[in-house]
């Protein structure tokens, strides 16, 4: 920003100094503070199993990250993140390397990109949550958002693979993609040139936005422009050292020659290291924060319903929108509660009515049964009475009959006696 720009924007006018004030040390203060805090860098490596992701990381950062070999038979793509603390001079770097496991191995690779996209979104989401918290601690928050994505292209020599194209299209709006050609010691110089052109033309014709090294800073614009023309970088990784000339260099030994990793004629490793780490690391972090993260945030908040301007196109602050949303939600909540309550009451009434009906029904039946019972009882009583009458009449008749019989007997006895008596005489 030139001083006239400043004047236009802030309404301030430039002033010339008559002596040395000392605020030219501000950048140094900033640097000191950052150095004390330490830096953080997160890098994602996507590529097929065995393509050389771990070896390249080891070679780039000159250390051994102790990655174990993965198998080709993973059922799904997974991501494995490891964090390391590195130090060079007095600069501390907290490096997180995220590797894909099993990428490109499955038979059906249509969903292979999904775990990667989900991982990237999760990191943005955690950061967003942290930002929206009431009590937040952004200054010592461990930023896990991915700053750079190295996409490892298989050196077929013809063109990109269909999976590569698909994945890069899904990722280009979420993360800074830097494509690299892996195992580049299998492509000769002439083939490499054609291959690079083909890759870049395919990316352009399919609208994939890869990371371009920034050209706005004059100090690095020139070297960045040249490097932009060398994309994608053809790299070779190796942690084995060999004696070449009178130095020990990182190299790969073949029966027909020795490929030196740090020899610019042999491969673009040095270019990658310079661009990724030495020159543009900070820019990558900035791009991630100001461009990709902001895009994510905007999409996410719009999804929830926040707007920057209300329907009359007047600017609305987040606070207002938040309050409006809150009242809206509370109103909604109350309405729902009311609805539920009414529903509940209604149900209760219905149930009561049902139960009453049932009770009535039962009562009716009870009455009916009682009546039946009484009737039968009456009938039985009647029968009993009849029976008793019969019994009594029968017993009377019997008594009468007995009496008669007794009388008859008596009379007969006298007669007999008389006869007997007369007989005797």
């Amino acid at each position, binding site marked *: 920003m030139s001083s006239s720009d400043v004047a236009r924007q802030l309404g301030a006018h430039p002033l010339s100094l008559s002596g040395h004030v000392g605020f030219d040390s501000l950048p140094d203060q900033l640097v000191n503070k950052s150095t004390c805090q330490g830096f953080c860098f997160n890098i994602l490596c996507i590529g*097929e*199993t*065995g*393509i*050389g992701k771990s070896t390249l990381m080891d070679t780039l950062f000159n250390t051994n990250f102790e990655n174990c*070999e*993965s*198998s*080709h*038979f993973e059922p799904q793509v997974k991501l494995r993140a490891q964090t390391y603390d590195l130090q060079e001079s007095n600069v501390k770097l907290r490096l997180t390397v995220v590797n894909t496991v099993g990428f490109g*191995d*499955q*038979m*059906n*690779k*249509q969903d292979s990109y999904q775990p990667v996209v989900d991982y990237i979104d999760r990191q943005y989401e955690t950061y967003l949550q942290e930002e929206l918290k009431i009590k937040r601690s952004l200054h010592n928050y461990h930023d896990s958002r991915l700053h750079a994505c190295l996409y490892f292209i*298989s*050196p*077929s*020599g*013809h*063109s*990109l*693979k*269909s*999976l*590569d*194209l*698909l994945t890069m299209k899904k990722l280009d709006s979420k993360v800074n993609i830097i494509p690299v050609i*892996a*195992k580049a*010691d*299998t492509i*000769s*110089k002439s083939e490499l040139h054609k291959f690079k052109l083909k890759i870049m033309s*395919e990316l352009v*014709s*399919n609208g994939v936005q890869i990371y371009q090294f920034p050209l706005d800073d004059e100090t690095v614009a020139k070297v960045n422009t040249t490097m932009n023309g060398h994309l994608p970088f053809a790299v070779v990784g190796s942690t084995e050292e060999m004696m070449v000339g009178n130095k020990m260099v990182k190299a*790969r*030994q*073949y*029966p*027909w*020659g*020795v*490929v*030196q990793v740090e020899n610019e*004629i*042999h491969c673009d490793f040095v270019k990658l290291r310079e661009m990724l780490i030495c020159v543009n690391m900070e820019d990558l972090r900035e791009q991630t924060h100001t461009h990709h993260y902001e895009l994510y945030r905007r999409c996410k908040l719009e999804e929830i319903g926040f707007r920057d301007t209300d329907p009359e196109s007047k600017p609305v602050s987040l606070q207002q929108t938040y309050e409006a949303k809150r009242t809206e939600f509370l109103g909604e909540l109350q309405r729902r509660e009311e609805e539920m309550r009414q529903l509940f009451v209604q149900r209760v009434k219905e149930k009561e009515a049902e139960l009453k009906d049932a009770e009535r029904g039962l009562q009716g039946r009870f009455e009916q049964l009682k009546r039946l019972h009484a009737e039968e009882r009456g009938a039985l009583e009647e029968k009993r009475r009849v029976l008793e009458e019969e019994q009594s009449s029968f017993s009377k008749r019997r008594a009468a009959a007995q009496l008669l019989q007794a009388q008859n007997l008596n009379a007969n006895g006298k007669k007999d006696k008389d006869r007997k008596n007369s007989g005797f005489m």
Partner: protein
Amino acid sequence: MDAIMLQEKLVERLLCPRVRTSRQKEKQYVGFATLPNQVHRKSVKKGFDFTLMVAGESGMGKSTLVNSLFLTDLYKDRKLLNAEERINQTVEIIKHTVDIEEKGVKLKLTIVDTPGFGDAVNNNECWKPITDYIDQQFEQYFRDESGLNRKNIQDNRVHCCLYFIPPFGHGLRPVDVEFMKALHEKVNVVPLIAKADCLTPSEIKKLKDRVRDEIERFGIKVYQFPECDSDEDEEFKQLDKELKECCPFAVIGSNTVVEARGQRVRGRLYPWGIVEVENQSHCDFVKLRNILIRSHMHDLKDVTCDMHYENYRAQCIQDMTSKLTQDNRMESPIPMLPLPTPDVETDRLIKMKDEELARMQEMLNKMQQQIHDGKDQ
């Protein structure tokens, strides 16, 4: 007279001293020792044919290797697809047939190419077009063989399938295993490690061991070189053993000729050195060429005829008879592509074959009778 003397001269060249002394005794000279020579003459006259299939992902160097093997350029005007076109690509089968000749020996070489294999995003069952093609060739040969006029049968059966394994991984991938398992009982599968110039010698050894283990673990039956006879000399046996331990071959191909060590050789030029395709310490190309062309070409054909084709034929006939027992009516003896087979009924099979033979014999007799009658008149 002259013919006999010529034959004797040939015999002298072929025979070993033992027989020559007996010939000098000139008692029991019969002359059938010239049979190999006769076979040689006849075969040169007839010419040979060989069908080779190459399979593997795009960019593995298949076309380059075929060009290097047969020292011709089969793929002059090839159009390669872009990545976006390959997302949903299906596998095609493309045949190139060339007639090549060397020292009077003619070879009709057919290369079956499989562009699109493993290139799509969803590769489920991507080998189906390939297995269908192989089965079709078997079916066609079966029909021809069972036909009446067998004079000019064209043998389009695939004799060998070179499968290119990418060197960029740690071993076999699921698509490699599935493909080889789908094909190992239909064709001679010869696995190769492609683009071997990205591996150092120790890495090659590690990868070969890994691939061999995985092949055994998954039960893939790749083409096995025949055991050499026990009466061959030690040197031959040693070579044979080395050859077997070298499997799978790590190959490099090249379409260009470069200058190396004062000679013009096929090779690849790198800033750090020149890879020579025919240098045994650089790659196994020479071994592959020897196996494929110089020593085992006929064995590959024999195994295809004796094992793979016979298996197919037996399977077909089984299915046919089981279909007969199901349908209970006579169908044409030539089957379609085989279905999964129920149990075997050998009696039915024999009976049916007998009937078929009887019918054919009848027809033949009838035709002969007609010709005879025609001649008489």
